[in-house]
Each structure stands twice: as structure tokens, then as C-alpha cells.
């Protein structure tokens, strides 16, 4: 079964009384454990598509499935639970909580999860801190870290809940190209190791080359799909 299936999804916004069609009938399917990128220039609809897949927004029409769950009919509470248990997020600006240290940022979603013991929490946080190479910086706050280190914390936080799907919206956009490549390679390696499906957006050709599959999005339409 596909991890993500999108069927004829459209999304319209009203911006200053003008209707903007961000997505025009997008359909795609991503299989379990795939490392997929959505490529496109700024304004092509990449973030809108990731927001819809991540259940942060509702489509104007069409259907979205995460596993066998049809998400657009779910209640807010069910969506909260789906985001917590099934989806991990990595943001362009890292979006770490500034008052929490590395350990606490990674632990945060686990605290909201039911049935995760303190011991398991500790073990998962330590495991993922080691996986992203930040164990030595556990007590550091985000302001004391470099951009690359912050994004590594965000990756560990996204993975801590052991989600089926991780969505990353331009995860390398705020990083220099060397660090950007390192982050993508880290994500790819974890994707393989943890069998987690990754969907990330980028407009950087060097970054998109690392993906298993590339969906090219232009003006709200997928106009090309490339398998590597």
C-alpha cells in the first residue's frame, strides 16, 4: 500500500479578492520507504502540496490518503493524532523551540504521545541524537547551534515519534550548499535505515539529484516525474 496517495487535488486561495489556484488537479503516489522530492520554482505550489499532505491545510477538492486513511474527512482531533503519530515535519527555518535545549526539542513530540514511557523516551531521544551526530550538544539551546546543527535537531525531532512519513519543506534552503548536501544525505541514510518515507521540496538541482524520485511541479501542476 502506498504511504501517500493524492488524487486530483486542487487548492484555491483568495488573495485580495483574487482567486489564486495554487494546485490544479495534482495526483501522485509515494510508496513506503521512498525518498522523494517535489521540485519546482518559488510559487509553483510545493509548500501548499506539502501542507496538504501534512494535514496542516484542507484541499479545495480531491482526495488525500495517508496509508489507508482518507484525511480530508477527519476531525481536527483525529488530524492532531495523525500528525503526532504518523507524520514528521522538517521546516526550512528549522522551527525549533528556542527555550528548549537539543534534548528537550527532540523529546517534545514524544511528551504528547500516549503510551511512551520515560525510559523509552530517553532511549529514542538518545538514539536519534546519536544518529544526527549531536549527542555532545544535548544541553545546547538552538541559538548556540549552527544552521546545519539546527536542521539536524529538526530531523531528529521529526523522526523521534517513528513516523511512517517525514515531510521536509525546503530543508536546505537556509543552509550553505555543502551543509545542504550533508543534510540531504543524512535524511536519505536515515530513510533507508528506518524505512521511513521522505517527501521533501527543493528548487536546488544538486539537492534534488539525491532523491529516488522527482516530481516536477510548475504552476500547480505536476508536469514531469523522474525516477532515478
Amino acid at each position, binding site marked *: 500500500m502506498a504511504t501517500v496517495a493524492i488524487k486530483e487535488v486542487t487548492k484555491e486561495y483568495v488573495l485580495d479578492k483574487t482567486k489564486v489556484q495554487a494546485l490544479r488537479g495534482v495526483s501522485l503516489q509515494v510508496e513506503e520507504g521512498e525518498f522523494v522530492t517535489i521540485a519546482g520554482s518559488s510559487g509553483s505550489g510545493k509548500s501548499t502540496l506539502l*501542507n496538504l499532505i501534512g494535514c*496542516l491545510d484542507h484541499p479545495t477538492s480531491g482526495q488525500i490518503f495517508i496509508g489507508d486513511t482518507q484525511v480530508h474527512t477527519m476531525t481536527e*482531533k483525529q488530524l492532531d493524532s495523525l500528525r*503526532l503519530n504518523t507524520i514528521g515535519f522538517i521546516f526550512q527555518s528549522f*522551527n525549533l523551540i528556542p*527555550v528548549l535545549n537539543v534534548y528537550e526539542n527532540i523529546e*517534545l*513530540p514524544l511528551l504528547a504521545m500516549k503510551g511512551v514511557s520515560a525510559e523509552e523516551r530517553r532511549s529514542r531521544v538518545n538514539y536519534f541524537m546519536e544518529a544526527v551526530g549531536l549527542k555532545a550538544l544535548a544541553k545546547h539551546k538552538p541559538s548556540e547551534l549552527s544552521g546545519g546543527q539546527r536542521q539536524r535537531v529538526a530531523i531528529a525531532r521529526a523522526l523521534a515519534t517513528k513516523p511512517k512519513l517525514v515531510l521536509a519543506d525546503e530543508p536546505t534552503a537556509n543552509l550553505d550548499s555543502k551543509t545542504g548536501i550533508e543534510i540531504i544525505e543524512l535524511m536519505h541514510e536515515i530513510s533507508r535505515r528506518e524505512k521511513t518515507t521522505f517527501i521533501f521540496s527543493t528548487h536546488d538541482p544538486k539537492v534534488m539529484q539525491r532523491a529516488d524520485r522527482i516530481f516536477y511541479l510548475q504552476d500547480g501542476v505536476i508536469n514531469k516525474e523522474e525516477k532515478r
Partner: protein
Amino acid sequence: MKLFNLSFKNVLENPKRSMTLGFFIFLVSLLMVLSNSFFATVKNNLENALIDSFTGHYMVRASEGELFRTDVRWWESSYVQADQAAQVKQIIEQKLGATEVTARVRHNAMFSVGVQKQPSMIIGLDSSAKTYTKSFELVEGRHLTPGNPDELLLSEFQAKKLEVKVGDIIGVESVTKDGDPIEREMKVVGIGNMNYISNFRFPVAFMDLKSAQALVGLTNGEVSDLTVYLDDKSQAESAAQSLQAEMTAAGMSGTGLTITPFGKLGGFLMSTVSLYMSMFNGFIGLLMVIVAILIVNLLFMIGLERRQEIGTLRAIGISRMQNILIFMTEIYIICYVAALAGIALGGIIVKILSNFGLKAAAPLDYLLGREFFIQFDWMQLGSVMGVVMTLVFIASFWPCYRIASLKPVDTLKEI
């Protein structure tokens, strides 16, 4: 629970803002403790003074209505007959129990010494009367000697007006209930002040029952009332009801006697305290409104500043309710600590003042007494905490709900 670690950290992250809000909560709590203790003490003192000097814990009278009026007319339209008084006294003493049952006659009179004249209210007390001495603080002389006729206890104000001292003889003119003028000469045996209430336009003088009966023309031993004192003032209502039941059982239901607990008398005096309490509570209320506005503004500011954090929390699966709780916990930590500090400081001040009497000068002495011992009450501290925490809940829930209800996609889009 560990999720609220975030709330603790946010409180510490912005100490200036936390302290601004905390200061107002501290101030409200401190003022509430001080004002509540102060007014509770004033109310209690005044109530006790009224009970000791005028109303007793309950009173048996032949007429109804408010006893204390601003026009200082103090005679009754009808009187308790001697046999009725004896029967009621017997019922109380044998069946109900009381610390004191005093037969009294109240009337108005004119005191005169030479050309000096002073209108006055008089209370004639039978020989069992003792409780009045608690509230009548002597400046000079002694209290009444039980059974001695024509002795007079004057207030300091009356003595000054009449220019008399202990041992002087003064003329007491009155009009009997039948309209006949009457005059007696009486000896001033004591001069003093009625604690708390001497300045409430009640120039009261005490004398023995028989002299007062003579001034009213009560030739058959009638009295204005029987004043009953108990061990505990909280029992006044039920004791009055019990007496009513006993009197009915004894066939006294048609005698026209009414039983009035102290709570239904002296309303004019107590309303003065209530007025001051209302004014101060109004001030506290205003301060609470300001604090509520501050909390609402602070939370909306937090909402604006931390949109990214809110969006992130929602995106990673923290529910709306958990978000509300995180923000409310943040406010509650500040307010709880500040309220605790305010209540603790207020409690310490009240506790110290409860051990050391405060000397009150005019015009405050008429409310506080000459020496004022503020009362300390643990329960009151708890109620202040309850009120402050309720205020914080009312002021913070709606803005927290609004903040937590922001759509994650909107907050993340603006980053």
C-alpha cells in the same frame, strides 16, 4: 506533565514581562488580604460593640422595626409587661440557656446643668446587666452599681458638652409615655466612651432600670425589651427561633412580643461599614479589571510573538487543548507565585498587626476603636487565592483559546 516544562522555560525566558504581570497580581493579592482583614475586623468589632451595648444577641420587644434611627427618637410605642418579661426570662433561663438576660428601658431625655442642655438617649439596665461594661470604656469613675438608683454613666462627649465630671449632679428631664413632664436629679458615677460607636450620633447614657422606668412613667414594672446574650453569636438566629417556639408552646403567641436577632438590628450602623467595604472592594475590583486587561493583552502579545512556535507545536501534533494548557500554565505559574508572595506578605503583616494593637486617632477611632487589633484568618488567605486564580482563569482562557486555535498553516506561512 513534562510538556509543561515548556511553560516554565517560557516564564523564565522573559523575566521582565513575567515580573510586570506578577507585580500586579502580587499587589492585588496583598491589598485583598490587607483590606479583607481590616474590614472583617472592623465589621466584627462594630458588630460586637453593637451586641454588647445595644442589641444583645437577640432581643425580645413589644414592637417591630429598626431600633436605630438617625433622628435619635428612641421610645417604644408599646412595652413588655412585667409578667410577660418574667415569663420570657424564665423560659430562657430554664429551657434555652443564656449568659445574660437583661431587662432594659430605653427612652429620650434632656440633661441639664445650669444653662447647659444636652439631648440624650438613655438606657436603664436591671441589676443583672454586666455585658455593657465590655463596650463602655471608662475614662473616669466606675460602672453602675447594681440596684443603686439615680446613678448615671455619661459619654465623654456628653460630659464635655455639659461641663461635668464624676460626682456632679445633673438634671434629667423627660416626658412620660402619657405625655407628662418629669424631672429627676442624678449623680454622674462614670464617664467613658462606647467602643467603635460613640461617634455614630448616639449620645447614650446608662442608668439603673428603676430610674429609667420612672422617667418613662412605667409604674407597673414594664420594660422596653429583654436583651439576651449567648456564648456564641453564630447561634443567635437559631436561639431566637427556639425561643419563639417555646413561647408559642407556652401560650404566648398572642402577646405581640417579637424576637429579633442582632443581624436585623443596627443596620444603619453596619451599612456605614458596608459602604466603606464597597468603596474599597470597588477599588480592588478596578485593579482586578486592570490586571485582567493586562493578562489578555499579554497573551495576545505572546500569541503574536510566538506564532511560529504555536504553528510548530500544532504541526508536530500537540493538540489545541494541550496548547491552551501550555499557555495557561505559563500565566498560572506567574500568577500563582505572585499571588502566593502577595498573600504571604499580607498574611505576615496581618499576623504582626494582630499581636500589636494600633492606636487610631480621630476620625478613624470611631471605626477602629482607640486601639485596633486586626484579625488574622487563615481561611481568608485561601479565599483570596481562590478569587485571584478565578480571575486569572477568566482573563486567560479566551485569549489562550484564540492563540491555540490559530491555523498551523497560517502561522507557518508567515515565517
